[in-house]
């Protein structure tokens, strides 16, 4: 085998078609950067970002139903990837519009936030199509690199909250780098064994008894991924980072930052289904179990909404992992559909929840204490209703997409007979109700005397309402989404 084997590799224009959404996001980034370079115009930058990302989403939507593209060396932009590209781009649009309100009073440059946001989105889209450790690395790090900037974005102004943003970014940077190193080391070990860096090459790992090497290699990668997904015991950064970061950045990290990794994970799992290295599956089950319990317990008596949501996201990642584990066992597509649907629902409800927080917050004043929401039901009924909807969806109550998602998870778990994990799901949901209801209850209380005026933001508010509508729509009539998801299953 000579090193020049692939020298004849060519890329035709046709090969670029599946990459169009990616290119659109890139173009958006470049366009925004240039726009900033020419003249700082906040509305224009915002508008450009939204328009560009929307375009990317529409392109991906268009490609979703098209013919399946051939697998490219680094990216597989199949229907699965396109579906999540739509989701990621749409969510990024949502975050952009939600953050509009947040930055209106910011006393420093606001435009770069959107540049970073579109770059991060680019990383996420790469992850959606990643089929290779190189693209995984690049996507992951593009996403993280932009997120560092977003998390620490308000670190400049002299306000108090900013040291928190800084702390959040530093913590995320260091820990994320450690986890990246773990992934890379594991990947290197896998490469040393199989000679391939593509996920498909994982099949070359020796399986069967006495496979410590494979197990360790895979577990190193898993640990890194578990960090990105904030699974127990790699969850510990989550609340601090969520808490300190500006709400829009948190929203971004909590939604796109999470699901992008999950998308890859699912792809890897599907590629390696036949691998069947039992210890890895067991470790995953353990991670899921502990995440569900720990996440819910940690959130139990929290008074900070961002932290509550952070902890609850730990638990939700545990729930999602159930479907991933189910995918290891089961032949059918249900577990993949379950993950897809739940990810969709997760984006909607998490974005909605953080959206409400962002909407009420600014860089000067983060409204993240539970007491800030007292009486919200009577002051801003629609916003409160939407927030309640999001929380109930997170709790998995019907009429919301979260319920259908949970139903899918249960179905996947039952299909594979994961009784213990299902029990954890039940117990975890029980504990979870407590803190979700606490927030809801606070909103129902009479409003406090002399409460400060709440901020208004039409764009963000409309996004929250759109999310609420989606939440209920796909909670009541999810058939269309279900069939779409069925068609994209790997």
């Amino acid at each position, binding site marked *: 085998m000579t090193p020049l084997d692939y020298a004849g590799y060519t890329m035709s224009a046709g090969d670029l078609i599946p990459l169009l959404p990616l290119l659109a996001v890139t173009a958006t980034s470049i366009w925004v950067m240039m726009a900033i370079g020419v003249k700082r115009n906040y509305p224009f930058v915002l508008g450009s970002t939204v328009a560009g990302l929307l375009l990317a989403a529409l392109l991906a939507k268009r490609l979703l139903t098209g013919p399946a593209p051939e697998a490219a060396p680094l990216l597989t932009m199949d229907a699965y990837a396109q579906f999540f590209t739509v989701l990621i781009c749409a969510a990024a649009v949502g975050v952009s519009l939600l953050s509009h309100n947040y930055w209106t009073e910011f006393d420093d440059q606001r435009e770069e936030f959107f540049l970073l946001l579109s770059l991060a989105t680019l990383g996420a889209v790469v992850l959606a199509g990643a089929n290779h450790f190189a693209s995984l690395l690049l996507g992951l790090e593009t996403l993280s690199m932009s997120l*560092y900037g977003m998390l620490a974005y308000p*670190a400049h102004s002299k306000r108090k909250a900013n040291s928190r943003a800084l*702390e959040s970014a530093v*913590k995320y940077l260091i820990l994320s780098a450690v986890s990246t*190193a773990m992934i*890379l*080391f594991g*990947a290197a070990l896998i490469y040393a064994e199989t*000679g391939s860096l593509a996920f498909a090459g994982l099949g070359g790992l020796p399986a069967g008894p006495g496979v410590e090497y494979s197990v360790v290699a895979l577990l190193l990668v898993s640990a890194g991924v578990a960090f990105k997904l904030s699974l127990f015991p790699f969850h510990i950064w989550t609340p601090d980072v969520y808490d300190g970061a500006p709400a829009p950045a948190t929203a971004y990290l909590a939604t796109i930052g999470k699901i992008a990794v999950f998308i890859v994970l699912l792809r890897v799992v599907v590629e390696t289904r036949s691998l069947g290295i039992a210890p890895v599956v067991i470790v995953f089950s353990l991670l899921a179990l502990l995440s569900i319990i720990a996440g819910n317990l940690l959130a139990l008596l929290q008074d900070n909404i961002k932290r509550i949501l952070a902890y609850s996201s730990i638990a939700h990642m545990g729930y999602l992992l159930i479907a991933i584990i189910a995918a290891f066992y089961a032949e059918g597509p249900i577990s993949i559909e379950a993950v897809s649907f739940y990810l969709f629902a997760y984006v909607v409800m998490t974005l909605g929840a953080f959206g409400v927080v962002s909407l009420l917050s600014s860089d000067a004043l983060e409204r993240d204490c539970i007491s800030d929401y007292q009486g919200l039901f009577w002051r801003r009924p629609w916003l409160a209703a939407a927030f309640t909807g999001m929380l109930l969806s997170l709790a998995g109550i019907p009429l919301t997409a979260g319920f259908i998602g949970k139903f899918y998870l249960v179905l996947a778990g039952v299909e594979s007979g994961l009784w213990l994990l299902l029990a954890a799901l039940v117990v975890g949901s029980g504990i979870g109700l407590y803190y979700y209801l606490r927030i809801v209850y606070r909103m129902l209380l009479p409003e406090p005397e002399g409460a400060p005026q709440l901020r208004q933001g039409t764009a963000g508010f409309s996004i929250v309402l759109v999310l609420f509508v989606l939440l209920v729509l796909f909670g009541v009539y999810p058939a269309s989404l279900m069939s779409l998801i069925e068609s994209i299953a790997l």
Partner: protein
Amino acid sequence: MGAIPVEHGLILAGILFSLGLIGVLTRRNIVFVLMSLEVMLNACGLAFIVAGSRWEQADGQIMFVLILTLAAAEVAVGLGLIIQMYRRFQTVDINVLSELKG
């Protein structure tokens, strides 16, 4: 040229990785922490080179190049954050960043 057993290269990478981890774990000075991270990333690069050399492929080196890119970007952002932190707290003690907890 004598061939070197793969395990030796990997073991070296493992040792460097662990040393880097110890550095991240024990140092309070954030600059040291960042340096230790570089050690860890470098160890990963080494592992890729070792693996690439086993298969006589360029992919290992390509991964190394990518890691290099990553490390550079990481350091740039990390140092940027350190500068901000130093401005705000006048120290590089990582423990001052413990306002967020609970």
